[in-house]
């Protein structure tokens, strides 16, 4: 009886609310369920890239005594990034309040703690369509989470868990959110400049790679590196992680179209072929260098191809993407196999060597493959040289910003709680010393 009354009251309310809506001259745009469903799927695919994709990819490359530490740092970093994203991250990158003048080039504001958003709120796509705002916020949330996690590849096997937990919030706030705003938000410095970055070549990969390299310098080398052998403890798990990353990357790239449309389809096919080309190219380079084509070479080539096609995903034709995948693998191989040894920086799992370098190749290369003569979707209205300079400028800004911000965040942690584990803890392995567990018993 009581329940019926409530139901009746509810119906009355709905009728009251419906009346003015019918009278309104223009109905607010409603999300197309197909687009919404695809974006929800994409969001989960990106989550799968982190957990367990990146965890296994990185974890397998470490020594067995640091397996849990590597995976736990990634899981905790991603979780922390998600919470910060809904508190102030979304505001700084895509908030409803846009600032006039210089400040607006770097950050936005408002929407703190997602104020003003509810289930009926929508976010614009690249066409007249809209998607649900909560879906957009979730999708972008996973990008912040994976970028912070990628850095940990450069610092693996020696950074304190507490230092990671202190570094990540500072870094996200002063590095990631401003760069995401600059590249992807209307009014952002590089967005207005015309930089092409479909799914995050600058924001995610160059950003994470360069930040990782800087943090690796602040941390110092692992004890015994490079004289003591530190072979990957399980390339099987790295291979599993590689597979999860590749599949998940379709959410990352094709999802960045923000709709289930032709642009997403283009990003999808490019994410297939650039990656396939990168994988094989790396193995060919190994043979050319006089070695055997290796499993780790295959995995590395997959990631090099994926990273390079990220900014180009919807900005290239399939054959331009293949070219990018090949070039990225060749250059990344040169960096991880030759340059790293020559300069002696300990980028443990090659976060810079593959994400940073591949990201730079992709971001600059996107300016070329975008052109119609290579089958790109560009209409040729922006000359190649002009577009290339815009791309290079976006790379330089990202490198400069990431370097400066990481130095600030890194020194802040170093000066307070310290970045590095005690030497004895490092020798015993971070699993047992930082987490009190062992991966394999």
């Amino acid at each position: 009886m009581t329940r019926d009354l409530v139901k009746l009251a509810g119906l009355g309310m709905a009728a009251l609310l419906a009346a003015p809506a019918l009278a309104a001259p223009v109905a607010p745009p409603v999300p197309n369920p197909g687009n919404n469903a695809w974006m929800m799927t994409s969001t989960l695919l990106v989550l799968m890239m982190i957990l367990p994709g990146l965890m296994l990819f990185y974890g397998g490359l470490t020594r067995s005594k640091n397996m849990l530490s590597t995976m736990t740092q990634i899981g905790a970093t991603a979780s922390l990034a998600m919470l910060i994203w809904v508190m102030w991250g979304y505001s700084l990158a895509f908030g409803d309040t846009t600032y006039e003048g210089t400040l607006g080039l770097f950050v936005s504001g408002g929407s703190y703690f997602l104020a003003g958003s509810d289930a009926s709120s929508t976010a614009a796509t690249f066409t007249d369509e809209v998607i649900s705002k909560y879906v957009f916020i979730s999708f972008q949330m996973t990008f912040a989470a994976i970028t912070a996690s990628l850095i940990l590849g450069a610092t693996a096997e020696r950074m304190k868990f507490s230092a990671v937990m202190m570094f990540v919030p500072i870094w996200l706030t002063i590095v990631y959110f401003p760069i995401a705003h600059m590249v992807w938000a209307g009014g952002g410095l590089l967005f207005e400049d015309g930089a092409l970055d479909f799914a995050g070549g600058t924001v995610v990969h160059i950003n994470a790679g360069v930040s990782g390299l800087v943090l690796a310098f602040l941390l110092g080398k692992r004890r015994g590196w490079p004289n003591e052998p530190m072979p990957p403890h399980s390339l099987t798990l790295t291979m599993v992680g590689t597979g999860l990353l590749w599949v998940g990357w379709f959410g990352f790239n094709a999802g960045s179209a923000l709709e289930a449309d032709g642009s997403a389809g283009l990003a999808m096919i490019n994410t297939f072929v650039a990656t396939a080309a990168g994988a094989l190219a790396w193995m060919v380079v190994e043979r050319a260098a006089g070695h055997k084509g290796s499993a780790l070479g295959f995995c590395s080539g997959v990631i090099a191809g994926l990273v390079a096609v990220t900014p180009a995903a919807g900005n290239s034709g399939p054959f331009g993407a293949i070219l990018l995948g090949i070039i990225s693998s060749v250059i990344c191989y040169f960096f991880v196999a030759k340059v790293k040894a020559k300069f002696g920086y300990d980028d443990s799992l090659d976060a810079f060597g593959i994400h940073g370098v591949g990201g730079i190749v992709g971001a600059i290369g996107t300016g070329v493959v975008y052109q119609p003569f290579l089958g790109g979707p560009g209409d040729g209205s922006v000359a190649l040289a002009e577009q290339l300079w815009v791309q290079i400028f976006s790379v330089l800004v990202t490198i400069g910003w990431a370097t400066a911000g990481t130095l600030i965040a890194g020194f802040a942690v170093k000066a307070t709680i310290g970045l590095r584990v005690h030497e004895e803890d490092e020798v015993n392995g971070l699993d047992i010393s930082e987490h009190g567990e062992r991966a394999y018993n």
Partner: protein
Amino acid sequence: MKFIIAVIKPFKLDEVREALGAIGVAGMTVTEVKGFGRQKGQTEIYRGAEYSTNMLPKVKLEIAASDEVAEQVVETIQQTANTGSIGDGKIFVFDLASATRIRTGESGETAL
């Protein structure tokens, strides 16, 4: 009685086992071991970082045999495990003081 220890290439194990079975050897102990000799080690490469391991995997056979059979065992292993290249392994022969079958308590050659 003799106690024979042979270190051979792992892929030759099945062939050697069959050949020894054919001449009437009733049992042996097999262990996977690592070591080095003239063959030295092998090189592993991960993203350009080369690690040379100076130990190679081998298989160690332990066989107890009567004096008459021992010589034939050595000969069989030598011929079967031979590939003609370095790293084929070695065979060592010791005098065996005693042997006891745990189940029955028999000792000497009847225990083999």
